[in-house]
């Protein structure tokens, strides 16, 4: 295991990870009684590689989204970066500290919110948990009072402070959870699925708070989410992982722009009189007289529209951007840029020339993440 030295990646970098790997050993149990007995006497294990060589750098103040399907290795990576899990190999520095060895010192300077876990005492009002957390972070009591006032105002949770947590709605609770995690003014905050299960309005509120925190307190935000809306509205940079590897590391703008050069046309005919006009068009889906086509922006749209109008009488037509959700979904299923570049799927929206400013291919080992501030152009 190589070790990184503080300052190696520049003073502006708060997270550096090099070739991070995590292997879990899971006991396997085959079915049947004899197998159960056998596994008692001689247990068998299978190794599962949850994180498979992740390298990345995060500059201070960045809002970075870590995306991936379930089991991609997102939470495992967060757990390694926060010192909860030790890496099997590779090296990392968070705020100049080694999370595996300096977990306690690091914990004073980072905060975390795990969407499905609570750090508030269930039966007590949030104020009690805030006071306890203040003591845990060894904050001076006057400073703590001041900080609580600040946060209560920022998060608009004044009226919730004396209601037992179990009586709060999920949205109210999440606001309090989030508030609790920044009491000690962390420099980096790790948010694992912060908007999971929340309704649209509360989601917006939480997103607003995340943006304010990033702007006003210059907090670096490291976020994992399934919600593409979170990424679109919040983040400047998106890192997409699947099967424990980074398949794309790009600015959110570049990610969208690459795909925005393409449009989707939904068209519905009353009748099709000239089928030859439809030949050669990139039809994604067709059902009776309705079809969905993909087309290049610019001249492509005009040409295709003309051909469609000549093909028959049109009842309805919609031209839209490719949804962000679809873009990300394609990146997962196409296993990275290989799939995107080859564009072999007729039922896929995947484009041909992704304009990304960063790309890591951990498989070949040729690509290395060159995080600078280039990702910061989004917000």
């Amino acid at each position, binding site marked *: 295991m190589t070790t990184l030295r503080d300052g190696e990646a520049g003073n502006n970098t708060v997270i550096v990870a090099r070739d991070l790997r*995590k292997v*879990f*050993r*899971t006991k396997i149990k085959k079915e049947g009684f004899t197998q159960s007995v056998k596994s008692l006497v001689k247990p068998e294990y299978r190794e599962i590689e*949850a*994180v498979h060589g992740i390298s990345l750098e995060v500059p201070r103040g960045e809002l970075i989204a870590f995306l991936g399907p379930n*089991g991609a*290795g*997102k*939470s*495992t*990576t967060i*757990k390694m970066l*926060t*010192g*909860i*899990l*030790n890496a099997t190999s590779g090296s990392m520095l968070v705020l100049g500290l080694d999370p595996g060895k300096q*977990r*306690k010192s690091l*914990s*004073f300077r*980072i905060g*975390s919110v*795990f969407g499905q*876990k609570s*750090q508030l*005492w*269930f*039966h*007590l009002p949030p104020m*009690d*948990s805030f*006071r*306890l957390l203040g*003591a*845990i*972070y*060894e904050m001076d009591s006057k400073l703590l009072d001041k900080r609580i006032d600040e946060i209560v105002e920022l998060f608009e949770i004044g009226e919730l402070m004396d209601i*037992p947590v179990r009586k709060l709605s999920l949205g109210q609770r999440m606001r309090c959870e989030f508030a609790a995690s920044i009491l000690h003014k962390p420099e980096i905050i790790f948010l694992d699925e912060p908007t999971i299960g929340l309704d649209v309005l509360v989601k917006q509120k939480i997103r607003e708070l995340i943006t304010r925190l990033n702007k006003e307190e210059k907090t670096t935000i490291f976020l994992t989410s399934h919600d593409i809306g979170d990424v679109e509205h919040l983040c400047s940079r998106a890192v997409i992982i699947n099967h424990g590897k980074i398949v794309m590391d790009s600015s959110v703008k570049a990610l969208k722009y690459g795909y925005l050069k393409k449009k989707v046309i939904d068209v519905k005919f009353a009748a099709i009189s000239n089928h030859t006009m439809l030949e050669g068009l990139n039809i994604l889906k067709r059902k009776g007289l309705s079809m969905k086509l993909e087309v290049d922006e610019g001249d492509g749209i005009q040409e295709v529209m003309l051909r469609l109008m000549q093909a028959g009488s049109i009842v309805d037509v919609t031209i839209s951007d490719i949804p962000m959700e679809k873009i990300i979904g394609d990146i997962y299923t196409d296993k990275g840029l290989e799939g995107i570049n080859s564009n072999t799927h007729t039922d896929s929206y995947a484009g041909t020339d992704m304009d990304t400013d960063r790309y890591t291919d951990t498989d070949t080992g040729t690509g290395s993440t060159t995080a600078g501030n280039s990702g910061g152009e989004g917000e």
Partner: protein
Amino acid sequence: MRKLRKYLLVVKTGINSNLIYTADFLAGALFFALVIFIFMQLWEAIFFNDGSMEGYTVNRLVWYYIAAEMVILSKSDVFRSMNEEIKSGNIAYKLNKPYSFVLYQFSEGMGQIAVRLMTNLPVGLLLGFLYVGKLEGLNISALPAVVISTMFGILLNFFMDAFIGMTSFWTEDNSAFYWIVQKLSFMLGLFLPLEFLPKIIREIALYLPFSYIAYAPARLLTSFSMEEFLSMVPIQILYTVLFAALSALIYSRGVRKLNVNGG
């Protein structure tokens, strides 16, 4: 100082959090009253209301049982909470804070125990007086010794539970261990004073930790002797320290192999 303050505040928060369970308190008091009543009936039937065995009269046996049950009923939920936190992987989310996880659990457990003692003690005293009156031959000057022994009984119980709870770092189901320990402490000191057991079993029991949870304080309350105090309390302390050390050890080994599900 600030380091100490955080654990004291955990104890305080633990007390606050447990004070809300009024229904629990009522159910607990009712259970306490019921089992003592049943045992009293049992001893009265055996002794025909007078006579004694190994120096225990019905009066002393009822008080013995109250003292022993006080320790057992005032235990914390540390076994269940450790077990659940480790199995569900939730423990991971408690590790990234600047505190010692074991001390945190200990402080939280002490908060719980304090609340349970505060409710069980008056209920126990009241039941004793109502059922059989004042303890016969009570030696007031022995009370500090009984308090010390009760304290170590509770601490020993806590660390044994914490230790067994943390075996779930390795085992998929450790409730059997817990069950065995519970039954052993029931048989070796709670249900019956050790004096009622065959000599050989009594002698073995005095080497094992189980009798030092409930038997030692209950024995010292009902038939105090300096000799027994000096032989039992040091062993209580020894076992408490041993299980505290084992808990710390199993925790540090467990965290190293922590295999949190998900990701």
